[in-house]
């Protein structure tokens, strides 16, 4: 029974693995027996993540995932070295808080490139027969409660995360025939370098107000990693095309 919650022998590709939620997910997956393929831009931080993993057949690739032409090489190389892929976690993401009045198309394009398009491109590649685990696979996109709720200054960020919610449903239906499940996790505010930067931009009272809106307090990366683990494990065998809110009660109010 307890085996269905672990990730023994699964090969899982993680984007955004150099910090925050992505890093913690990679660590948690390795502790549960997965072989983790770490992908992020910053090589030094990637190596730090690598050194925190439990023993396994782990790989790391320092790569800007918006260089779409390079993505298949990573997947191909990974499959050659450790075998086909049975899990994918897209945790790479960028955040921007700016009033609509000064938004530019290039800002939207950049956020969508990292938060959405790179994730969908990797999902496309990994779901190819030659790379995909034959029996089953699970893809998880780290979205945000900001994909459901709005907030001033976040037109770009909210819409990019909202895109993951709907894209997940379409992808889940399309890939069901290949036994690939596709789901989203929607974190509230989790204590990561990205949110630390975001919160520091706000005045003290606004920052405190955001903290107060989480009945269970701000989240930790482990809170998201544990849920991502469940969705990548056999325990969630019958879950696909859905979004799991993990936000300490933020969106219940």
């Amino acid at each position: 029974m307890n085996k269905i919650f672990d990730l023994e022998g699964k090969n899982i590709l993680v984007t955004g693995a150099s910090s925050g939620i992505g890093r913690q997910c990679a660590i948690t997956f390795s502790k549960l027996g997965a072989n983790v393929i770490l992908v992020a831009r910053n090589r030094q931080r990637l190596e730090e993540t690598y050194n925190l993993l439990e023993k396994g057949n782990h790989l790391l690739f320092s790569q800007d995932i918006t260089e779409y032409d390079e993505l298949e090489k990573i997947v191909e190389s990974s499959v050659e070295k450790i075998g086909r892929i049975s899990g994918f976690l897209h945790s790479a993401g960028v955040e921007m808080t700016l009033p609509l009045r000064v938004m530019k198309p290039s800002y939207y394009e950049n956020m969508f490139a990292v938060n959405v398009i790179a994730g969908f491109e990797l999902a496309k590649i990994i779901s190819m027969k030659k790379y995909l685990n034959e029996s089953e696979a699970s893809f998880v996109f780290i979205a945000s409660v900001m994909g459901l709720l709005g907030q001033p200054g976040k037109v770009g960020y909210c819409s990019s995360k909202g895109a993951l919610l709907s894209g997940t449903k379409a992808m889940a239906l399309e890939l069901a025939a290949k036994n690939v499940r596709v789901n989203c996790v929607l974190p509230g505010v989790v204590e990561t370098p990205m949110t630390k930067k975001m919160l520091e931009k706000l005045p003290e009272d606004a920052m405190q107000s955001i903290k107060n809106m989480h009945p269970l307090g701000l989240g930790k990366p482990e809170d998201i990693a544990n849920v991502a683990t469940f969705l990548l494990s056999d325990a969630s065998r019958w879950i696909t095309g859905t979004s799991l809110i993990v936000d300490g009660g933020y969106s219940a109010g």
Partner: protein
Amino acid sequence: MKKAEFIAKIKEDLEVEDELTLDSRLDKFLDSLGTLALIALIDENFGKSIPAEEFQKFTTIQSLIDYIGEEHFE
């Protein structure tokens, strides 16, 4: 750019209704989103990045110009 242009750009981008001068106090017309917009404006036009948490030290538009550097203005 000229200082007058910089002031006009702040007034337009941030949609400030009052007239602005070099001595205008930032806390009289900036809210949290306005602050971020102003930081983006300065970064884009002068290549100077100001962390939001340091922005409180600026008092007037002139104090911003002092930080950016007079040499950047005609």
